[in-house]
């Protein structure tokens, strides 16, 4: 199905194409940037990656032979009764932070895209550095929450080796966390570029692909939050 769409777009592009035949600058069939196509293909692939991880988590849900459990109270070998381990209030907060980071990211893109537009000059809307840094900080905050969550789980006796829940939970959220980490580093790199040479309208695509990645990571968290944390 992907192909049929692309077919049309290609024939669209066709009309624009003739003028460019003789210039040696890089010609692309669709007029789109390579990187953007690649990142979307990458995101498609990531869908399968996270679906596999999420499926595993769901398949193993309720199959652990020893506690701790996510939503059920459990008794330790020494006979102590423990509460369910997932901490919804804290995670809700971190979810909110990640959601906000997506807003910041989109505003950062907006700012870069409108470089040179007077309406955006000299106000917060055009301040790409600010929005980039805000996104990175929000992302880092999310990671902080996750670090807190992980360590408190370990204190409560849940490690990646404890049971099926522990293995699948830490691997799923850990993979997500790793993606967030890469995202934060990527955004910081953009920030550094903005700081050192200043991003211009021409750099839109660089910010765009990073933003797409970042939003995707956010979207994955939306699914995880519901499937792992809220649904019993």
């Amino acid at each position: 199905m992907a192909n049929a769409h692309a077919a049309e777009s290609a024939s669209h592009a066709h009309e624009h194409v003739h003028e460019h035949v003789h210039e040696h600058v890089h010609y692309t069939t669709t007029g789109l940037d390579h990187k953007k196509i690649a990142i979307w293909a990458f995101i498609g692939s990531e869908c399968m990656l996270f679906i596999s991880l999420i499926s595993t988590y769901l398949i193993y849900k309720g199959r652990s032979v020893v506690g701790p459990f996510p939503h059920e109270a459990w008794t330790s070998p020494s006979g102590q009764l423990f509460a369910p381990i997932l901490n919804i209030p804290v995670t809700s907060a971190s979810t909110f932070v990640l959601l906000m980071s997506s807003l910041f990211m989109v505003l950062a893109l907006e700012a870069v895209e409108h470089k040179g537009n007077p309406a955006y000059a000299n106000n917060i809307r055009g301040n790409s550095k600010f929005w980039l840094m805000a996104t990175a900080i929000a992302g880092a905050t999310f990671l902080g929450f996750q670090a807190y969550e992980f360590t408190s789980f370990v204190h409560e006796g849940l490690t990646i080796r404890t049971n099926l829940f522990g293995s699948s939970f830490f691997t799923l959220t850990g993979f997500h966390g790793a993606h967030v980490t890469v995202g934060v580093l990527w955004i910081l790199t953009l920030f550094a570029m903005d700081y050192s040479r200043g991003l211009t309208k021409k750099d839109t695509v660089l910010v765009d692909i990073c933003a797409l990645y970042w939003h995707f990571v956010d979207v994955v968290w939306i699914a995880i939050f519901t499937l792992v944390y809220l649904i019993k």
Partner: protein
Amino acid sequence: MANTAATQTTAAPHAAYESGLWSWIATVDHKRIGTLYLFTALFFFLFGGLEAFLMRLQLAQPNGHVVSAELYNQLFTMHGTTMVFLAIMPLSAAFFNYLIPLQIGARDVAFPRLNAFSYWVYLLGAIFITVPIFFELAPNGGWFGYAPLTTIQFSGGLNIDFWVMGLQILGISSLAAAFNFITTIINLRAPGMTLMRMPMFTWMSFIVQFLLILAFPAITVALVFLLFDRFFGTNFYTLAAGADPLLWQHLFWIFGHPEVYILILPAFGLVSEILPTFSKKPLFGYHVMVYSGIMIGFLGFGVWAHHMFAVGMGATADAIFAMATMLIAIPTGVKIFNWIATMWAGEVSFTTPMKFAIGLLALFTIGGISGVMHSSAPADTQQTDTYFVVAHFHYVLFGGSIMGIFGGIYFYFPKMFGRYMSESLGNWHFWLNFIGMNLTFFPMHFSGMLGMPRRIYSYDAGQGWEKFNMASTIGTVLLIIATLIFVINFLKSRKGGSVAPNDAWGAGTLEWSIPSPPPDYNFAQIPTVTSRYPLWDLKHPEMTSDISHASPDAATVADAHAAPMHEETGGKTAAELGIPMPFSTLKPLFAALGLVIMFAGLLFMHTDKFALAMTTTIGGAALLIGSLYAWLTSPLE
């Protein structure tokens, strides 16, 4: 064939790595990378064949004692793994690399350095997974490595570690390449090359790239679990923790079934180039060929559990997967019939590539039919895990993929090396291959239905399997002779074959419009494409006078005549012509090296050298990140 255009040696590309070995190691030219893939993959094909030969020697007689049980188990695991991941996939990749840019009229792929990275990761990963066999330490869990046999509880040694990490590494190579080709095909088609004018090989490759990016994540996850289980003590497959072994099976086959179409579709694409050329007719039913390819790819994601008809999934699941599997026979059948129709009313000339293409039609059909027999779940409970399955998949893999790829090699050899391969040796190769193949694999249908399980290193006398096994082994000897003839032909013809012109066979697609071998920039001027067979429009107007190959919107043939396909440049270099080309660079190689070192470091954890493990892994990771950074911040051209 006329000896018109002389071979043009391409001038050494770039400043730093002028010539010789370095020019290959630092290359980012898609053609050179394709050539590297070709040579490496052919080597591994021979290696996998050698492994098969040892197995066949062992099985020639009952209670054989050529190899030990342990070595045999390593042999079939590595034979399967080698053939699938180190031979056929990279052989296909050789063609993706070499041909896609040429067929769509581009100067290179979208991300040339990523392309080099893919190759180096493949090469290093292949070495990583192969070398242990010399120490009898090779993976021994079967090519689909079912848990829990592969967990540390049942396979404590390093064997499975090599497999887990090797496949993980190879997966990265395939994924990187796939993103690259998707982008290339979407975005680097020459003006006028609409999707529906793309050569069929490019189309099938395009579909394969989507299969790759969607199938590999599933096995990546399955392997990550296994890796974590083995190295960090997680419980994904730990029986005591209540793990479910079917998790591995599902994740593996969600990958594994699309994988078999990853293996066959490129061969289908090659055949779709060869048949029209030697029938002097356009491909029959181009649109249907495209859609059936898409259907095969799409349906391929919904049938994985047909590999699990004996695991007791329940009647409903068995029924659904059985029927879904059968559906695939329809688009595949359409392809077979359309190919036959392509030859129908044509002028069929039996060159070597054509023989292999026809061989594919004949043999793949047999494998397809036995596939449909498998798809009938109750019947499959008698067939699964016997030699009948082995017969099925060698008919589709050898009779399909390998036949197609050999056809492709004979067909594109003149383009790649500027010389033809010998037709008479090719003839010998084909017939010995064809006969040997049938003699090897046809009897396996019998031994399977007569009760012979697969993956057994020895069997009792008097079970009624002796004759068939002997026949299979004799067939293998023929295959070896055939393959050696091919190797001789290949090596000799590179220097000694008769010289080929640009358009070696009278084909119709873009790649034949440029010199053989092509200059590093491929097209001095990017052509404008007005039809599916632009070269035929140009050279054989009589073939196109009655009907245009251009469809659906028919740009006029006259247009094509006006815009010459290829400007003779008299061997000028890219620089002389002012064509910017990507710089040669070693960074992708270093990144690949870092990646492999990173994984390899983990091995030391199992020899209890934790500090060494961490140092190596972190060192590898640092090398990877450092090279990546250097690579991303340096300009492409």
